[in-house]
């Protein structure tokens, strides 16, 4: 039996020197529920991901993944457990091809990091698996292009492709649409929606664009100055006075109009 709660965070805090970037945040992510984390610039969203994904140690608090305490477990071990993250600043392998960007994590997953005598291109299973992922993202046609020559939006998709190659159960997406134009944003959102609906993967997304958040998320968490301000369905969040205050009413109203 798998627990209905995939990720459980208990009074998580993180400070940098005297500055409290995250204070006493507790939340739960149910399996299969598309959740979003929002908050103004500097609210601590990336810090939250950095702590949950093992990049930073928390100053206080615990993190449980599928009921197992993963506080302070390093990122590469979390990958093996199925907890993955993407990066706000595109973090891929620039001079490698699109295919190689996906083959690299796949080779790691298949325990082939040290296979030095086999030819990479003759690893049928690996290549097919990579192409399946690329097809899902609409990138298969460009599999032999160097990723540094791709359009910005496609580079962001490579980020997702690398994450998918690791067979995740929970994916933390840090502003997947950061810096994208409206069409690219639209495509990314549709993709996340589709992946969330047609796979076993649970997504937890941070996003600036309110329109996007309110259209895709089933549950929204609002972070402000390192504290969890509110949580609930899009409707509840929209109606929440504290949230409206934090956002000065601006973007929430604009979205309604």
């Amino acid at each position: 039996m798998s627990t209905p709660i995939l990720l459980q965070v208990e009074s998580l805090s993180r400070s940098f020197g005297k500055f409290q970037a995250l204070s006493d945040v507790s939340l739960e992510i149910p399996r299969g529920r598309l959740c979003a984390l929002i908050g103004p610039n500097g609210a601590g969203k990336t810090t939250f991901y950095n702590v949950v994904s093992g990049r930073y140690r928390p100053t206080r608090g615990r993190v449980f993944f599928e009921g197992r305490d993963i506080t302070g477990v390093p990122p590469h071990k979390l990958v093996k457990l199925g907890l993955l993250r993407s990066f706000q600043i595109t973090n891929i392998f620039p001079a490698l091809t699109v295919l190689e960007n996906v083959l690299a994590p796949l080779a790691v997953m298949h325990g082939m990091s040290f296979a030095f005598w086999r030819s990479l291109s003759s690893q049928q299973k690996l290549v097919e698996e990579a192409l399946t992922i690329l097809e899902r993202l609409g990138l298969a046609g460009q599999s032999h292009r160097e990723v540094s020559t791709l359009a910005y939006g496609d580079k962001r998709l490579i980020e997702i492709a690398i994450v998918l190659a690791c067979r995740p159960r929970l994916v933390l997406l840090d502003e997947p649409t950061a810096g994208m134009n409206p069409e690219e944003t639209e495509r990314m959102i549709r993709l996340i929606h589709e992946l969330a609906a047609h796979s076993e993967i649970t997504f937890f997304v941070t996003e600036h664009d309110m329109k996007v958040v309110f259209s895709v998320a089933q549950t929204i968490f609002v972070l402000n100055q390192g504290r969890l301000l509110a949580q609930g369905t899009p409707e509840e969040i929209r109606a929440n006075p504290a949230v409206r205050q934090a956002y000065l009413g601006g973007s929430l109203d604009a979205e309604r109009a």
Partner: protein
Amino acid sequence: MRIRRAGSLWIVASTAFLAAAPFFLSTYWILILTEILTMSLFAMSFNLLFGYTGLLSFGQAGIFGAGGYLAVLSLLHGPSSLWGAFAAALAGSALISLVIGWFCVRRDEIYFAILTLGFGMMLFTVAHNWRSLTGGSDGLGGFTLPPLDLFVWRGSLADPRHFYFLVLAVALIGAILLYRMVNSPFGLMLRSIRENTQRLSFVGADVRAVRLCAFVVAGTLAGIAGVLFAFFNRIASPEMLHWAFSGKAVLMTILGGSGVLLGPAVGAAIFFVLEHVITAYTTNWMVFLGAILIVLVLAFPRGVLGSLLDLVQRYRGRPRS
């Protein structure tokens, strides 16, 4: 596909040329070719770290020299066996690289370079100051080359042509090993580390272990190249371990093309041919050699071979795999 075929045609042709060279080239040029092949192996081993993994090692000469000394020591104090000498150098340089690498692969970029420089200086000092064992600054010579015992046929390493064949065979084996390696899943790990170390470790790879493996393979090949070098010169000398000698590998690799398997070999060929042609005309050859190298590096930003391959690719319009 067509690029592949054209590429393999070139490789077959140059291998055939190298194999046939002793039958039509003068001894003078055979000696130069021997030097080129030896330095090619050394520089290719360096390129596995530099061009493929993104690690600049200034300690490569230290391991190269250690291989040379170990082989000579094994001939002086052990049996007069060519394979024994190679085995001693192989085991010794693998072990030394394992120890040095264990410390160095923990750091990136300039810190890695400085660590390898430090270890290289230590190895140099051992070779230079441990007079009773290494002969100090005079180097370690006075050994007789064992016969080239191929079980069915016995050659003599005193014959430059027989020696050349030995070097050619060893360099080819090294090149084939490296070729398989860079085109394998392991090779993809190396290039991914070069491109984005942190990202690779975030997908669960043990980056340190992968780097350490590359370091040991590169060091072992460098040690073997050192054996050929010491046998060719009939002496193992401390200069072989000096970091300036690592600089030669850097120069040849950048000249020919880093991240291209045969780039360092092309770089070594250009370097030695220029050196021999220019010294025939002037004693100030360093000035001219330097000037020509500067022009080449400026004209071929990705190395001579690297830039040529890019050019071919642009005309054919397909990316290199």
